[in-house]
């Protein structure tokens, strides 16, 4: 008896699925259009970057990376990322803890303000720091009198990069922390754990993947930022040139496509794990998604 019921319900499910799906022709036509679009806008640029990098072979690639000016640019980029990423991680953890675990007035205003850097053009970000610290800026005279250089120097590059990458970790962590709730932390505290112990052993492991994804995005942007850094750097070869600026200088100097391309590949080194991590992470991210807005808000600008 039960067997008969099962069979008939299975059949009806199958039938109704058939009604709620496109015909194979429409389905494959949609797939074909999507693939054609992805070919032009995703696959070809990806393959082109790789192909350009190795067009003259490994030796050329290596030598273009080890020129003194290039080495200086790589060093500066790594320094800038090493300062800005940890600071933004610290901020992201603090902001996510306050926003996800507590209720307070003005919370939505705070979240909007955290998003603010996403809606500002990188060039305008650079301009803001020139207005503050440039020669004619608010603090320009004072800085000049004390011999401190921020604009056209490394501090300006660091500040601009921190501004640009400011929201990444926070926006990635907030939805994940909201999704995990507070019950586990409360249990840990009830059992006698200290606040820090609770954070390290309960909260951090549960948001691990969101944190890692945020760090990867933040780092990729920190190492790749062009507009804001270009405005405040002054392009002093060997001193204030980051890798993206070096790429531009090589391109304009027309020292050969392969040199430029080698740099392109070097640039990519900053974000090798992104595609992989994005793939790994996506199914789990959605839980957070439903709770607070869209994930794309979190991403690059």
């Amino acid at each position, binding site marked *: 008896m039960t067997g008969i019921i099962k069979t008939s319900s299975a059949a009806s499910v199958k039938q*109704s699925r058939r*009604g*709620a*799906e496109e015909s194979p022709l*429409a*389905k494959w036509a949609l797939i074909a*259009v*999507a693939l054609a*679009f992805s070919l*032009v806008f*995703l696959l*070809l*640029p990806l393959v*082109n*970057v790789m192909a350009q990098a190795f067009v003259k072979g490994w030796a050329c690639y290596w030598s273009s990376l080890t020129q003194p000016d290039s080495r200086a640019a790589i060093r500066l980029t790594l320094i800038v990322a090493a300062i800005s990423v940890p600071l933004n991680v*610290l*901020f992201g953890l*603090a902001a996510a803890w306050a926003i996800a675990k*507590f*209720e307070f007035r003005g919370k939505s205003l*705070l979240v909007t303000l955290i998003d603010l850097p996403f*809606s*500002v*053009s*990188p*060039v*305008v*970000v650079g*301009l803001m*720091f020139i*207005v*503050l610290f440039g020669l*004619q*800026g*608010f603090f320009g005279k004072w800085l000049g009198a004390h011999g401190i250089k921020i604009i056209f120097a490394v501090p300006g590059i660091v*500040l601009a990069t921190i501004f640009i990458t400011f929201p990444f970790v926070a926006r990635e962590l907030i939805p994940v922390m909201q999704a995990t709730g*507070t019950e586990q932390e409360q249990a840990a505290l009830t059992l006698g754990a200290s606040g820090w112990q*609770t*954070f390290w052993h309960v909260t951090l492991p549960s948001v691990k993947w969101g944190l890692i994804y945020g760090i990867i995005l933040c780092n990729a942007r920190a*190492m*790749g930022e*062009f507009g804001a850094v*270009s*405005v405040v750097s002054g392009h002093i070869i060997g001193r204030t040139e980051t*890798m993206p600026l070096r790429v*531009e200088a090589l391109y304009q100097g027309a020292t050969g496509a392969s040199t430029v391309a080698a740099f392109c590949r070097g*640039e*990519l080194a*900053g*974000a090798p794990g992104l*595609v992989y991590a*994005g*793939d790994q992470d996506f199914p789990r991210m*959605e839980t957070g998604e*439903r709770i607070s807005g*869209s994930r*794309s*808000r979190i*991403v690059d*600008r």
Partner: protein
Amino acid sequence: MGHKRFSALPGFGLTLGFTLFYLSVIVLIPFAGLIVRALGLSWADFWHLATTDRALAAYRLTFGASLVAAVANAVFGTLLAWVLTRYEFPGRRLLDAMVDFPFALPTAVAGLTLANLFTANGWLGRYLVPLGISGAFTPLGVVIALTFVGLPFVVRTLQPVLQNLEREVEEAAATLGAGRLRTFAAIIAPSLLPAVLTGFALAFARAIGEYGSIVFISGNLPFKTEIAPYLIVMRLEEYDYTGAIALAVVLLVSSFLLLAAINLLEQWASRFQD
């Protein structure tokens, strides 16, 4: 219910304090500086600096190309998200992972790569340029670059929404005799619309401010292929700070209007979800 449930956890003062301090130092003070300088301009000066012929041409290109790119992303991004969530085909997981590629690639490298693809002897340019379609150093190049950088926004906004759609409703529509197209128009499209609009606005907002990927592919010819952010850089290189600030204010105000629109859209969308 909120207050008592949350009050047991420690660290509220510390984390919120640090958050507000860091936010002020990194974002709010630089922002305020620019606003104060902008308010120092008289209205007549501002209007004069912000509406030169060259600036108007730059706005037209920036906003026009951003709009076209955002529309293209809304259409193809929706299609891509649909195909990725609904169908099984070889390479689906790879394609899904590749959607994040424009986020990962530094913008300057993206611009160089796209320019390389679309120049007369590039991989695509060698077929397209003889047909009269020139993607490098033209307004079309700007649209191409902006479509590339904006693509992930629509796809990544739509994917979770599509995954959460209840298939039973579509099946019910089919049982009641609706064709697939009618089901799409009457059942699926309305529930996707808020997310599509959000993704569209995000891609549009990003496109307005975009700089790095465009400067290499557009050629930056004044009145023809010069975007507004590039004009700001030009003003800065001439040490014309007030001119740069005036242009920056126009860009900022338009991004804020878009940000407000995004927030309204999200509220509207969440009303439907509840």
